[in-house]
């Protein structure tokens, strides 16, 4: 089936070459990092995780969100998701690949990554994260590829794939729960030491991931003859709305606990993020952008008649996705490191090489996504040809 990705329009190839160019720049920059170490990034003793791990955290959510399509379609027989569920699964595949690459990018000694499996350490959450992420990648690849292959031949997917699909549901929840546990179990990191962390992660994932999927589905429809389905897109819009409200609610809970308890350690990271701390305000504009975009997206999404208009839906989804990308892919991680363990402030901002590497990884993700979606589109366009 993969050969279908080898035939495409000029526009398709221009896009592929553009991605390859970005990947090339990213790879060259990465070689520099490999040589000189993480010193070329903005990371420091006080802020030891930054953009890379932020992107990783955010993308685990995108990957997990496929379950929002799998549950209605496979568990509730919601037929309208029949065409779009594969887009969700392949989005998960590319998101997990990006996750793995971002972890690799953050390692000081990436050549030794196999040590995680050579010396399994079940006490470490990173160990479990590696296990569940790779498992999830494998599950989605197998499920996506098998169902698409069956679809192409016009037959039902083989029976053995059903248990895997059911397994992928709790597995999706597990990848994001485990990722939240990376943060939520660390003594001395007040910002992250909260029991709602995993719940908040899941809520933001189920808002952000499907929002991205809506944008992608609209793009697929625009640029190909394959229509994932208007009703399916609207149904996802509903999911995004609920999940985003849940996410904002959970964030509100965090604010209450921090400020009503009046415990400095809990208030300081929030103050740093939203108003600045001791004159340090680097992240304040970003966080307010995120908050405003969140409100804008919710206002547009909450009225069914408004979100029915696809232009508005797309705008709302872009706002929402950007909002969550800032909040979870950046603020949530950096905020946990500020103030530092000595209640001082060391700010963080990604450097140019760090940003190039990050863009490179995103480009790899988009390349994988493009190729996989191209195959899907080709198969579906064939179907349409047969039907007509």
């Amino acid at each position, binding site marked *: 089936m993969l050969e279908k990705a080898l035939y495409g329009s000029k526009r398709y190839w221009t896009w592929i070459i553009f991605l390859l160019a970005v990947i090339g720049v990213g790879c060259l920059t990465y070689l520099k990092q490999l040589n000189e*170490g993480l010193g070329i990034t903005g990371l420091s003793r006080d802020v030891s995780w930054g953009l890379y791990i932020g992107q990783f955290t955010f993308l685990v959510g995108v990957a997990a969100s496929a379950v929002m399509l799998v549950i209605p379609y496979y568990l509730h027989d919601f037929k309208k998701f029949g065409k779009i569920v594969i887009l969700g699964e392949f989005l998960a595949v590319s998101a997990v690949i990006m996750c793995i690459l971002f972890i690799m990018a953050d390692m000081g000694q990436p050549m030794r990554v196999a040590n995680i499996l050579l010396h399994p*350490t079940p*006490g470490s959450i990173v160990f479990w994260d590696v296990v569940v992420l790779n498992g999830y990648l494998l599950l989605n690849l197998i499920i996506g590829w098998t169902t698409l292959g069956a679809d192409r031949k016009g037959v039902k997917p083989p029976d053995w794939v059903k248990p895997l699909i059911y397994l992928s549901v709790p597995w999706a929840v597990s990848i994001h729960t485990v990722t939240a546990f990376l943060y939520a179990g660390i003594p001395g990191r007040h910002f992250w030491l909260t029991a709602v962390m995993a719940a908040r992660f899941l809520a933001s994932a189920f808002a952000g991931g499907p929002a991205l999927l809506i944008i992608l589905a609209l793009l697929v429809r625009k640029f190909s003859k394959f229509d994932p389905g208007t009703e399916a897109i609207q149904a996802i819009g509903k999911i995004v709305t609920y999940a985003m409200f849940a996410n904002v609610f959970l964030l509100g809970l965090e604010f209450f606990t921090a400020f009503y308890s009046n415990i400095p350690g809990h208030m300081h990271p929030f103050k740093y993020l939203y108003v600045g701390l001791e004159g340090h305000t680097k992240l304040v504009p970003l966080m307010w952008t995120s908050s405003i975009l969140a409100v804008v997206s919710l206002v547009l999404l909450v009225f069914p008649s408004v979100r029915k208009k696809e232009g508005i839906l797309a705008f709302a989804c872009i706002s929402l996705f950007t909002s969550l990308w800032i909040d979870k892919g950046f603020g949530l991680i950096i905020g946990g490191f500020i103030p530092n363990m000595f209640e001082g402030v060391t700010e963080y901002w990604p450097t140019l090489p760090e940003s190039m590497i990050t863009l490179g990884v995103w480009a790899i993700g988009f390349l994988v996504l493009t190729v996989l979606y191209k195959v899907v589109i080709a198969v579906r366009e064939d179907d349409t040809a047969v039907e007509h």
Partner: protein
Amino acid sequence: MINRRDFLKNTAIGIAGITLPLAAFEIIRPEKILANMSGTSKTRWVFLVDTYKCVGCGLCVKACKNENEIPYDANVTRTWVERYVITKDGKLHADTPKGARDGFTTSRIELGQGKYEEIRDEDIIKAFFVPKLCNQCENPPCVQVCPVGATYQVPDGVVLVDRKWCIGCGYCIMGCPYGVRFFHPKYHTAEKCNFCYHRITKGLKTACVSACPFGARQIGNLKDPGDPVTKVIMTERVGILKEEYGTKPQVFYLGLDREVK
């Protein structure tokens, strides 16, 4: 079927089990610190810092950097000295320029990014220096989070990092509540104080202890009741950092101020 004899026996064990922890709470003696120590090793390395004696000369930091292959000019140190200045307005001013590698050569407080704060002598209520180093916790969070077992605790209590096995994921750096870990600029692996393990296991003092001209730093064996460090820890009023996290740090401070984080 449970017979009467077993029932009585189990009940007795059950009651004993319930009362035992209560009894343990009733008698709190210095020996309790010893009872906390796990393992059968005859040694438990501990550190004693006398903050009254520290003048912030930074000789310990210099010695440590040279001893442990920490690039001299890189802004990372295994041990460092913090300066605390509390002014009449109740404000706390703290700094540690270059980890106090060159001592504190000016009365100005470093604010970072090349900025300084001038403090007039007459405004100062109290000021003091606090050396910091790895606490070699009895319950080390860094060991818990390491995904490859590259950081581990040896039976005599010291937490070590294997530079050849560490993957440099940075999880332990993030997980240490004392901020003592950092990335080694050259090896690209996690790095921290290990009480100069290569020295203490050969009967030497740590580099910082040897370098301190004022005796502000001492290393000892808590399991040896005759050790002068042990005697101080058992009989004097000593403090530890961030007790509330349950990490059981093993660096004890004489004269620890409440402002010290």
